[in-house]
């Protein structure tokens, strides 16, 4: 049974379907768009990022590549500089270390170093996040790591609707975009998603601009700023808190670079209380950036702040410990209560 809103839009879709739809649309529209990555052809992407693309577009445009991230991400840079529009997948963001020079010293810097005479119109897609016990080398988000380094636009959608519009923008953009999709949100059969990410999604193409945070829930008491999976945990916490009489505003950053400081500031000016929730490591990361941005812009607006993030340890394997380090709905609720006091 669908709601009237869904009727208006046509249907709902998982985040993975929405992403693939955008990619397929762009591949149809422009022969220069192609996808490369490990297991993106017959497998359809370990996290369903390329389901069905091989069938429609063939091996030349949906390319399995050697386990040589430096070589193939660098090849994407080279192809992009030649004017093609590659989408290249790094299977887990945790593998960035084998290819970070191509990502960061070439992909991200060549436009600047060339004084704008070269463009690098590529999208680097990569899976992020934990919650399924994949341990220290396969569970990180590394949001802060990528957002810290200039030259890349950094996108991290939390719903199918956003995922599609941001993917269209990413592919059409002449700049390198790092598109971080959270495994837990994709709607993969073997990794059930929460309810939130599956949203109504228009069939036609549309672009969502980077750098516009989305107020996923309005509230007057406390501002929660977050992204990715934790948008849904924050929304869940907000429901609980509403029963306690605390009205939480939940801001989904949607992109880390550019960062929409304005929307955050506006909300804090209203609520005075700021909680930042992040699935990345606590220190020198997203939480610090959001809080200090507000402090720098309007210190007086801030009455209380709190950050909720992964404490500064690698992600442990065993479930009780992983659950302890990745912020849960309860952790968010508790932080909101504590700043609300």
């Amino acid at each position: 049974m669908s709601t009237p809103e869904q009727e208006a839009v046509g249907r709902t879709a998982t985040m993975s379907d929405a992403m693939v739809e955008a990619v397929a649309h762009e591949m149809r529209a422009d022969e220069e768009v192609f996808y490369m990555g490990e297991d993106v052809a017959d497998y359809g992407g370990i996290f369903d990022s390329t389901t069905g693309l091989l069938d429609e577009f063939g091996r030349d445009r949906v390319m399995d590549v050697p386990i040589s991230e430096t070589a193939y991400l660098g090849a994407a840079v080279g192809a992009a500089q030649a004017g093609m529009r590659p989408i290249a997948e790094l299977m887990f963001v945790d593998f960035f270390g084998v290819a970070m020079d191509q990502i960061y010293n070439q992909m991200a810097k060549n436009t600047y170093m060339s004084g704008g005479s070269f463009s690098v119109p590529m999208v680097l897609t990569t899976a992020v996040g934990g919650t399924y016990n994949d341990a220290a080398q396969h569970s990180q988000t590394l949001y802060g790591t990528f957002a810290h380094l200039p030259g890349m636009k950094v996108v991290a959608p939390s719903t199918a609707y956003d995922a599609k519009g941001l993917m269209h923008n990413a592919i059409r953009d002449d700049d390198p975009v790092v598109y971080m999709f959270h495994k837990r949100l994709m709607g993969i059969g073997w990794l059930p998603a929460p309810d939130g990410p599956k949203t109504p999604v228009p069939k036609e193409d549309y672009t969502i601009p980077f750098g516009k945070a989305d107020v996923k829930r309005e509230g007057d008491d406390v501002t929660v700023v977050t992204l990715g999976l934790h948008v849904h945990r924050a929304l869940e916490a907000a429901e609980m808190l509403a029963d306690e009489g605390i009205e939480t505003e939940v801001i989904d950053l949607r992109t880390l670079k550019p960062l929409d400081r304005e929307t955050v500031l506006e909300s804090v000016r209203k609520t005075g209380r700021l909680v930042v929730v992040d699935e990345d490591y606590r220190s020198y990361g997203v939480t610090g950036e959001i809080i200090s941005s507000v402090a720098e812009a309007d210190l007086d607006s801030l009455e209380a702040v709190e950050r909720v993030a992964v404490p500064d340890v690698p992600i442990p394997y065993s479930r009780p410990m992983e659950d302890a380090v990745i912020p849960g709905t309860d952790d968010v609720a508790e932080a909101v209560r504590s700043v609300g006091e």
Partner: protein
Amino acid sequence: MTTASPDQLRRMYEDMVTARLYEERLQDEYMEGKRPGFDISTGEIPGELHLAAGQEAAAVGVCHHLRDDDTVTAPHRPHHVAIAKRVDLKRMTAEIFGRETGLCSGKGGHMHLFDPDVNFACSGIIAEGCPPAVGAGLAAKKRNTDSVAVAYLGEGAIDQGGFLESLNLASVHDLPVVFVVEDNDWAISMPKERVTRPDDGSKRADGFDMHGVRVDSDDARAVYEAGGEAVGRARDGNGPTLLEVQVHRRMGHFMGDPETYRPEEDQERAAARDSIDRLAADMREFGIDDQELEEIRDRAANRVDEAVTWAKQQPLPEPEAAHDHAFTNPPEGVTSEEPEFADSGAAAGGDD
């Protein structure tokens, strides 16, 4: 030439059967609680699980030449190698079940097994166990001991920079290192020929002026011979070897892998080429009878059952334990005190 003695055949057979039964048991345990509808984040064994059924020959054929003080690094598919290297099976199993008494106190898990007693370590990042193995070889050379180091990797990993750089570093210093490539024809869904040239991975050695050899059949005795030569060369100070071994992937890449990309004939072919059956047949030729083989299998089954039973009785870690072990020493290092002359003015930043 290091031909395997009948006793060595027995030892290999026992470890291979142990590894096979272990993987089959883990498969059952893993699936339990994940159904219906396979949810990877539920069940007794957390996370991903990469099983090595069909790759046992490559493990025993090399590791049975090793001592405890020799180092082995294994990749994401490590159990058979760990068993052949005599990693503590109970604590390893407890680790895989995420228990407090596991090898890594539940912090590492199946892709990150560490056993200092037998110098065994893993990494889940393709080929990145190679450089640390080279480092272990370097340490042996510097200390003038005759320890050797072995790095295991898959055939898909031979395209990765970390492996290729390691070949040069080991070669230019004549280090006691053996690189063992387990060629199971597949890197997840990607067949070898789609992503790698040449077909024979041991040819990579040619570009680094290094010994390279491929064991072209999934035969523990043949691997044992080639492994003996490679380990012997390393131990005697005659430099590194790249050894590729044909093995067979009998299961999916990881548990839950639908293998829809894999032709049925290929799956059948892999199933038909069982190195354990082959070794058993050879053993019979050496006069080892079915009863003895049966006894070995029983022993192996008991050992596996004991380890799993023990592991499942172990407690889960406390949530707060997540905060331990980021460091060995305190954060401040070996001291928490400013040095004494700190007040002498030296600490104040000089004379400007």
